[in-house]
């Protein structure tokens, strides 16, 4: 069992959804991003998605684009990302990487999987890789014992939900709405329906279904936690660092935001 699987199982035993936080490695620089991750875990994140910053983030909205861009300007490399993964795993949280596909392919698919596992990473989320294109990744993640998280969307057909969940391990990422990352005033009504439809195809496997996109406060986290196995929050953390006059202030804001979300996922059921 990977650390991701045990974190999700543990949350389930506690009768709650897991809290999953996202941060690009190297934002605002490598050392600081490790401190931000620590603050996220101290505030109550069970799982951290360490973002691999990429020059062409087509699925991200302005906040994460800006954060990733700062990380690239700071010179963040895949090796730095793995260092953040290692530091994340040392906090006790489960460490995932979330990456567009090209940097992983460039690194070498097998080498990346092996180095991730060696760094204590539990798995990888690949938002622009669909199972049909994933044969080398499925082999590499199997060999390295990593979870692999594919995405489903409100537009996915039932057949694709089945295909995607079958290829996924650890959890399946349900995109709550049709759109890019970023905070929203309300959680899309499409999310609950998508989770319901996904549960039909995960009934046998028990694969957890975690929901992301647009969740930006404790109340929204509670709302989603009522039907999902995990609640994924990203832009809200980045925004708090972007808004802070200095890192220390940002860390306080991040910790308190994580606490608010952690209370949210515990108040749902």
């Amino acid at each position, binding site marked *: 069992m990977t650390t991701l699987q045990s974190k999700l199982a543990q949350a389930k035993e506690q009768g709650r959804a897991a809290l999953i936080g996202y941060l690009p490695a190297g934002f605002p620089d490598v050392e600081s991003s490790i401190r931000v991750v620590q603050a996220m875990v101290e505030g109550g994140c069970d799982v951290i998605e360490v973002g691999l910053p990429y020059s*062409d983030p*087509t699925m991200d909205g302005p906040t994460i684009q800006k954060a990733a861009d700062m990380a690239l300007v700071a010179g963040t490399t895949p090796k730095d990302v793995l260092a953040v993964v290692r530091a994340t795993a040392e906090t006790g949280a489960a460490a995932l990487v979330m990456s567009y596909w090209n*940097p992983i392919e460039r690194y070498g698919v097998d080498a990346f999987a092996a180095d991730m596992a060696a760094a204590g990473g539990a798995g990888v989320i690949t938002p622009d890789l669909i199972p049909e*294109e994933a044969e080398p990744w499925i082999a590499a993640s199997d060999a390295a014992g990593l979870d692999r998280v594919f995405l489903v969307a409100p537009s996915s057909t039932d057949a694709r939900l089945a295909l995607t969940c079958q290829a996924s391990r650890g959890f399946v990422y349900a995109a709550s709405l049709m759109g890019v990352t970023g905070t929203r005033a309300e959680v899309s009504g499409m999310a609950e329906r998508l989770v319901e439809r996904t549960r039909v195809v995960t009934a046998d496997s028990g694969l957890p279904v975690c929901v992301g996109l647009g969740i930006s406060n404790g109340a929204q986290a509670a709302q989603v936690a009522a039907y999902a196995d995990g609640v994924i929050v990203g832009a809200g953390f980045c925004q708090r660092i972007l808004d802070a006059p200095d890192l220390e202030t940002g860390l306080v804001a991040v910790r308190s935001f994580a606490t608010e979300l952690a209370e949210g996922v515990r108040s749902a059921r």
Partner: protein
Amino acid sequence: MNTRHPVPGYLDEGGHYGRFGGRFSPEALVAALDEVTEAWDKAKADPDFQAELSALLADYTGRPSPLTDAKNFSAHCSGARVLLKREDLNHTGSHKINNVLGQALLTKRMGKTRVIAETGAGQHGVATATACALLGLECVVYMGEEDTRRQALNVARMNLLGAEVIPVTIGSRTLKDAVNEAFRDWVANVDSTHYLLGTVAGPHPFPSMVRDLHYVIGAEAREQVLERTGALPDAVAACVGGGSNAIGIFAAFVPDDSVRLYGFEAGGDGVQSGRHAASITGGSPGVFQGTRTFVLQDEYGQTVPSHSISAGLDYPAVGPEHAWLAESGRATYSAVTDADAMEAFRLLCRTEGIIPAIESAHALAGARTIGAELGPEATILVNLSGRGDKDVNTAAAYFGLTGDDEGQQA
């Protein structure tokens, strides 16, 4: 006119050309990509659609485009016979309209009311705005902020045609960033909106669909050359950015083993300088904007900004079918520097009275190299993909004709 085309044996159902192509896109867009694939497969086989498209291509675009014997320019190509396929004479001034009319008709067939597009120099944006005005579709064009400044005239043209132009202010603020923004718009508005992609790149089915819609260039040219010369050409030359005009003219000749196919990429200051847009010549295989192809990227897989005097070739990747044609050896790709392209531009203006697009001038420069290689007995078909009206400011500055001292610095 022939808008039909054979499906090449090297394309599989998932849109792969050997190890290139495919669909590297978010799951949220897969349903829309499937919808476009299915709609296009049906439209291709539907005589009504073909008739409607053919009528527009004839009566609106002005097809077939002529074939011009460039007898004077020939002297600058070692005496080889140079035949120009005149896509510059199409309505809106380039080959782009062929693809745009087809996809705009398809948009209506899919019951969608809104079209989005990316544009670099503005040619695809203007063509898209034109088709949307004709067919009553809402049109939004994403354009890098840098490009809106460099191509203010085309922004005005799009506005006159009723399109909204949204400047993209993130990333390098050029074509690739406009594509990123268009994808972000599409995923959020996919129920009402078709993304009218302007080149043979992106996720399946765009590379093959856009190729199919430009196949008419090669099909016409092949017949015209046969009729004019009694034989197939020895070589076909085209410029390659994303590669839509090149694939359009190449596709009809791919089965003709005797015909050499040459693609000319934008060499900028020279491939060695690092300041270029030659993805095949100077890039490496990777995944970019939905497809696996040759990409300008660094050792970590981050996209490297491209550079070319020609905005239309200023793109850090290339269509996957070109990647396949290059790797299989069926077509040969090389880079033409800004300087060589501008010399060919100047020569065509002076010897033939035709101001080419700077994009197309890369193919003309290539024809000079091919002429030197194949000699005066050879016949070279050159795709003159666009006209140079949009490039007058750039060229005037380059040649020092503006009265200021910007010459050669454009």
